[in-house]
């Protein structure tokens, strides 16, 4: 038994309740963050957090702490019991998940887990050394362990590794972006990523303005993944769906997107950052969200599935407790690839439009209609005669995502793993497998600053 699962079992034994669930999240990570080609914000973290949910007389209460000696666990158990005793009765409480076989997934690499702080610094140095321009971003790697134990028989533990490099090569008036993420260190090349960012940056000098309007566009995987994530958090959560607050509400079974567009939540795919179970202990599984343009499903956890009734079951999409107000959430979006060999081929299909590398600061303007605003950055270009042409200043876009996805010229063949980890609070690596996309409609509603720092 792993030390993490053992700690979950100890917490469970300390629990005072009719039912109990102990969740342990352990993090051993390092992030070498650099700016102006020097590390300015290194962060080495070692932490383990125990969350204890107890049910007393049908009332659930929750407490968490990172003090894990016996006295710490006793205090934690007392606080969880107090929380439960103070809670009103909850007739919608679905009960704890039953025990079962753990789904086997990839996602752990010994070499990545064993990286030392000095090695993390050297990998950051490899990125910096490969850049002819000032480099901004980070190299990070971490080991995350998630263990669940419950009175209902859950006994689960997953070790996850992740390594990633983010490279923004920038000077005054020019900037380019690239990133790589994997659960295997040997699939991350800091120097190559930095060089890709430099090559992009060199194309952005002399950026010009364009008039607001509706354009055809190519979005690289970084940009497309960000747009989809914001849309999916709202549109594919069973909570918002059930409350009729989101685009998907009332539209399951309707063809609302281009038939080239298929989207799934696929936590089992080894090309991504695989997950074995969710934060309720339910097994992860692939869930079809959009099939050939038809809205085919949303994500559920135990609570929302019970409230929805009508035979709904959890899809293994319960988030960590601090995100519970969002309802079930995706961790592993996966877009089916298309037929184009490259983003440049997509530009040929577009003919006349704009090319977007990356997005910045998105915000949902209207969740019911799927309206999202944000900015482009670090590599925005005009497409003319099917080729990437002059660089553009950063553009404000305000798109209705269903319109954006309604008519596609194509997608690239091979999806790319885009890191979606925010690295706020406890580490929980997640990312999306997304190709580049060419759309007939990308609404530009303003212009902002030029590229560069």
């Amino acid at each position, binding site marked *: 038994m792993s030390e993490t699962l053992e700690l979950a079992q100890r917490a469970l034994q300390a629990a005072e309740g009719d039912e109990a669930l102990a969740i342990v999240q352990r993090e051993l990570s390092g992030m070498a963050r650099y700016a102006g080609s020097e590390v300015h914000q290194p962060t080495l973290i070692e932490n383990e957090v125990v969350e204890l949910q107890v049910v007393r007389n049908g009332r659930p209460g929750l407490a968490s702490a990172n003090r894990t000696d016996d006295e710490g666990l006793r205090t934690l158990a007392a606080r969880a019991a107090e929380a439960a005793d103070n809670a009103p009765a909850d007739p919608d409480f679905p009960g704890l998940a039953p025990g079962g076989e753990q789904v086997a997934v990839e996602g752990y690499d010994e070499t990545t887990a064993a990286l030392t702080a000095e090695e993390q610094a050297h990998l950051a140095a490899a990125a910096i050394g490969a850049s002819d321009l000032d480099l901004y971003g980070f190299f990070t790697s971490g080991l995350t362990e998630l263990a669940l134990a419950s009175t209902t028989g859950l006994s689960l533990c997953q070790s996850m590794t992740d390594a990633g490099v983010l490279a923004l090569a920038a000077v005054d008036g020019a900037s380019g972006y690239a990133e790589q993420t994997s659960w295997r260190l040997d699939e991350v090349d800091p120097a190559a990523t930095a060089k890709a960012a430099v090559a992009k940056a060199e194309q952005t000098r002399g950026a010009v303005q364009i008039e607001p309007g509706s354009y055809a566009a190519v979005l690289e995987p970084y940009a497309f993944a960000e747009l989809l994530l914001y849309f999916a958090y709202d549109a594919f959560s069973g909570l918002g769906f059930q409350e009729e607050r989101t685009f998907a509400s009332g539209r399951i079974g309707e063809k609302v997107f281009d038939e080239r567009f298929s989207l799934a939540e696929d936590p089992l795919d080894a090309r991504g950052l695989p997950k074995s179970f969710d934060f309720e202990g339910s097994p992860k599984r692939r869930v079809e969200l959009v099939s050939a343009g038809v809205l085919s499903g949303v994500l559920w956890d135990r609570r929302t599935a019970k409230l929805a009734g009508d035979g709904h079951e959890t899809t293994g999409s319960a988030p960590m407790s601090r995100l519970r107000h969002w309802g079930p959430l995706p961790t592993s979006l996966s877009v089916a690839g298309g037929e184009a060999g490259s983003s440049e081929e997509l530009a040929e299909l577009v003919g006349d439009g704009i090319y977007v590398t990356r997005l910045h600061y998105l915000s949902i303007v209207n969740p*019911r209609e799927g309206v999202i605003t944000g*900015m482009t950055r670090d590599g925005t270009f005009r497409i003319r005669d099917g080729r990437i042409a002059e660089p553009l200043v950063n553009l404000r876009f305000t798109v209705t995502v269903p319109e954006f996805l309604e008519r596609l010229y194509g997608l690239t063949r091979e999806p790319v793993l885009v890191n979606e980890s925010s690295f706020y609070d406890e580490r929980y690596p997640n990312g999306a497998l997304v190709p580049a996309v060419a759309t007939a409609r990308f609404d530009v509603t303003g212009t902002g600053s030029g590229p560069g720092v």
Partner: protein
Amino acid sequence: MRELCEQAVAAALGAGASYADARVVVRRSQVVATRNQRVERLDDAESEGIGVRVLVEGAWGFACDRRLGTEGAQAAASKATAFAKAAPGGHHRALAPVGATRGEYRTPVEQDPFAVSLADKADLCLRAERALEHEDVKVTTASVRAQREHKVFVSSEGSSIEQELVECGGGIDAFATREGITQIRSHPSAHGGSSSQAGWEYVESLALEQEAPRVAEQAAALLRADPCPSGVMTVVIDAEQMQLQTHESVGHPTELDRVYGTEAAYAGTSFLKPEDLGSLRYGSEHMNITADSTTPGGLGTFGFDDEGVAAHREPVVAEGILSGFLTSRETAARIGNGSGGSMRADGWSRMPLVRMTNLHLEPGEGSLDELIAGVDDGVFLQTNKSWSIDDKRLNFQFGTQIAWEIKGGELGRMLRDATYTGQTPVFWGSLDAVAGPDEWVLQGLTNCGKGQPGQHAHVSHGASPARFRNVQVGFRS
């Protein structure tokens, strides 16, 4: 706690650091949230640990450990120093002098929020939710929160500081839905309500239950309201939206670490340059912005920041001219101005960053009614709904939960789905009036994100409603 910090600092110096500081932080937080009259969260969390920051030949190192004992303190110091020695880069850093500071600070609290039972907190939320009941309101939420952070800071320069910061807050939301349209109204502000460094008396002052019927009525009325028209017009913006406008278009761009580019890869940089200090026209003469880490009740209030710099108040924009930056000791030394005072870390496991403390739009004169009376044709915008701004903090777009037509100096029909957009200095240049002190409202938000790994800062802003001419309302191309 103090002894552990001293051990960590000594260990770092012994390992070769030229400067070291250590922070032990013990944070307890409670969240009670209800949704559709069921408890959604009833959480009680505690987190403790030590963070050690070092300089070795100009290179930063930072490591943390949850174990509050000698082993954890020394491990964090050792790892931070080892990383700094291996860190790539040129490393020429200086810190503005601060001297050896010894002090204590505690948030003044009338009623300890942790002395209020979780049951009473849940009951308050449920009562507020019941008061939100309305035929068209399909989803209601209410939440209250409390946090106590006890921290000790020790530096190799002789500083030794102990602080206890207490905060709490709450809010309610009503989502109305009808015929494919969904609208939201919130109180006292959007995105989880408002918090303050204060005791439970602050939550009681929010009057969640009392305000709920109005909130529900307005959410329902928005379903039948006309969409806000687009065009260039005069806008009057309420105090809450002005707080976010100030946060995004003044607070972040005046963070000097952003000006120097250290947030370029994530949160972005700034349209400001160091040489703009004292000369750049940021806005009209009605624009006065102050950074004040002494504001009673502010979430950015403290005795000392996380570098040991004493709290103070300073102008950031005075009569429209850029007059100050938000600084750390490092950035203050680099620009040769000031002594820092804006460095804060999100708990023990993060390195301090330049963060807003309390950033205020200073009041002008007159009332909200007088601002509106000065508008022949425009809109009054209330309560944030969406927000986005570019990486240099120039192009912004905000949406508000509700708007009101202004015709002939008087409020008219209710409007929904309002947005406005602009370029920061142009927008602030069009400011022609700020309402007076009687309209000035202080509110606190807890979701200001920055840094990698990410950190949430708790920040307060005070503002009065303000009026801007020639603003682009609406976004459709």
